[in-house]
């Protein structure tokens, strides 16, 4: 036994330093719930310059009657994870099987799908980039088509919901605006990156100085900045990051900041009003102790300005402490009210 522990410790020490990604223990799986861990091929990701996996890990959670009612079709909720975590650990953390079981017990059965979009920089930003891959299209087309082909889904717009947390909340906004015809209703939990990202000369200089092999050790904030940079200002001619840095000759390169801005949900709303109005329903929420509360309030106000109907809540909580509970108690019931079944 002692020898085993010693070996395990040695292995841990000997393992190369890995990125500080968030992990969570596997969740309980209530009786009747089926969980499948699958791989989904992403033609939209082929040829990405970062070498991100094209076959993505996806967690699929099936409701209790799926196995016993072979002719029944189900609405599907696509759930996008945040930064510095993969799909499986997010599924673990959110205890998705219990959320599906709880809603099923209330008469609302869904298939919940959690794709992994972890990339070399720690997160896809759900953007369309030659460097990271076109993750918007991966979600809206490759993943949705795979599910519709291989599971008994309600394979129409009316049967699909999109929700995400943090970077996944950002993804929900931008995928929703870019591919409105795919989803019936959307919900953004604690969405990040709503306002245009800015840099100072100091912060941009530090970003451009990160060695490629040192990304994983550069810290959450720096990794998030790097992930944003490669997602929003890719440059196929500038290895190893394949990015246009936001700094040039000691000054901020405004053209790069401009490209970042064009990926900001807050900047995009004014040019995507019809797309947003076309949803059956929109929801957004954030905790009152979340650093993103101000940013998320801004997009709520922008939607108000354009008369885009949506549910909006600021609840007691932080960026992470209530999100699983709210997924089960607020988000899935929201989809139950709106998705076809």
């Amino acid at each position: 036994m002692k020898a085993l522990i010693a070996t395990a410790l040695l292995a841990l020490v000997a393992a190369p330093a890995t990125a500080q990604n968030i992990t969570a223990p596997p969740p309980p799986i209530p009786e009747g719930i089926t969980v499948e861990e699958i791989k989904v091929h992403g033609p939209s990701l082929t040829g990405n310059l970062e070498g991100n996996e094209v076959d993505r890990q996806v967690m699929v959670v099936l409701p209790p009657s799926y196995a016993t009612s072979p002719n029944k079709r189900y609405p599907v909720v696509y759930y996008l994870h945040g930064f510095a975590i993969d799909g499986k650990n997010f599924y673990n953390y959110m205890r998705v099987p219990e959320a599906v079981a709880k809603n099923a017990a209330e008469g609302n059965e869904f298939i919940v799908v959690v794709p992994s979009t972890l990339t070399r920089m720690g997160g896809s930003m759900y953007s369309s980039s030659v460097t990271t891959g076109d993750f918007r299209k991966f979600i809206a087309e490759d993943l949705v088509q795979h599910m519709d082909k291989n599971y008994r889904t309600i394979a129409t717009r009316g049967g699909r919901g999109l929700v995400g947390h943090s970077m996944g909340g950002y993804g929900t906004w931008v995928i929703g605006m870019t591919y409105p015809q795919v989803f019936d209703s959307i919900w953004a939990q604690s969405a990040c990156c709503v306002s245009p990202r800015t840099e100072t000369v100091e912060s941009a200089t530090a970003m451009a100085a990160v060695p490629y092999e040192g990304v994983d050790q550069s810290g959450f904030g720096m990794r998030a900045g790097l992930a944003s940079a490669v997602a929003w200002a890719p440059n196929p001619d500038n290895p190893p990051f394949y990015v246009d840095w936001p700094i040039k000759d000691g000054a901020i390169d405004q053209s790069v900041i401009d490209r970042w801005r064009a990926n900001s949900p807050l900047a995009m709303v004014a040019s995507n009003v019809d797309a947003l109005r076309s949803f059956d329903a929109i929801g957004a929420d954030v905790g009152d102790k979340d650093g993103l509360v101000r940013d998320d309030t801004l997009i709520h106000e922008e939607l108000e300005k354009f008369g885009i109907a949506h549910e909006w809540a600021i609840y007691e909580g932080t960026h992470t402490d209530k999100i699983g509970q709210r997924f089960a108690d607020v988000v899935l019931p929201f989809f139950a009210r709106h998705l076809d079944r």
Partner: protein
Amino acid sequence: MFKQLLACAAALAALAAVPVEARTDKIKVHGASLEGNLEGNAPDRDVYVFLPPSYDASANRRYPVVYFLHGYSVGADAYDGLARFQEAVDQAAAAGNELIVVMPDVLTKFKGAMFGASVTTGDFERYVAEDLVGYVDAHYRTIADAQSRGLSGHSMGGYGTLKIAMKYPGIFSSIYAMAPCCLSPSNFTAEQIEQFTAMTPEQVAAAQGFGLAVPATLSAWAPDPKNPPYYVSTGVRDGVVDPLLLARLHANSPLVLLPQYLREMKGLEAIRLEVGDKDFLLQDDTSMHEEFERFGVAHEWQVFEGDHGNRVNARIRSDLLPFFGAHLDK
């Protein structure tokens, strides 16, 4: 009866043998995408349809369609005066290149739609890609397929060509942007915005040329339904323009948008980008060419002798219609 039929057929044959003067239709095409716009722009737009000479005589024949978007500050009438499209269509047909050319009028309150998806102007991107294309396919003998549909335009219309190709893939297979404007991100100064907000309604009504380019841009790309009377973002505080206002503009700049829409651009059969060597847009358009190069977007690039407007008529004949003749299926 049989004799009558024969006589009738003979009469028809005689008719077909006479050189038929090609027909120009000037119609109205309703835009569901323009309904309820806050500027009060007409949702029923004037549209020119220039038909090839064989159209009326060949009752079963279908034709490829080239959509042409005109530039800023004037409407479709002025562009037809400049380009004389029917003559160009007839000449192309005589050279074996028969196609229909369609030009919608997009003159708005501020003298140009700027092709935004805006609640203030109306969604002119969708108007072109869906309402107009849908109407033309339903009412004319078109080959109703992307492979036989081209999009083109000059200046503001060249901008619209690039933007609509990005936003609506699968509608057009080849595009031709002649001296496209507005490719770089617009960075209006506080002074420019304040000049506009200080204008009286009489001054707005009397403005000529590019005098309303700032509000036209704002109304298309930075609409604000809560800011009457013009329903555009006009935020300036302590001499500084609201960064979010600029961000909304930037999110409509083709040079900024390109990296997000590479698949759409690479999916086109052919792209032509061109500008005159004395055009004030030479640098901007060259930047677009360089960005296409950098991201591996195949395209034809030409710098021709000329300024911003003096070669429109000639280029339509020498290059634009032959380009579509070479790329659209017939």
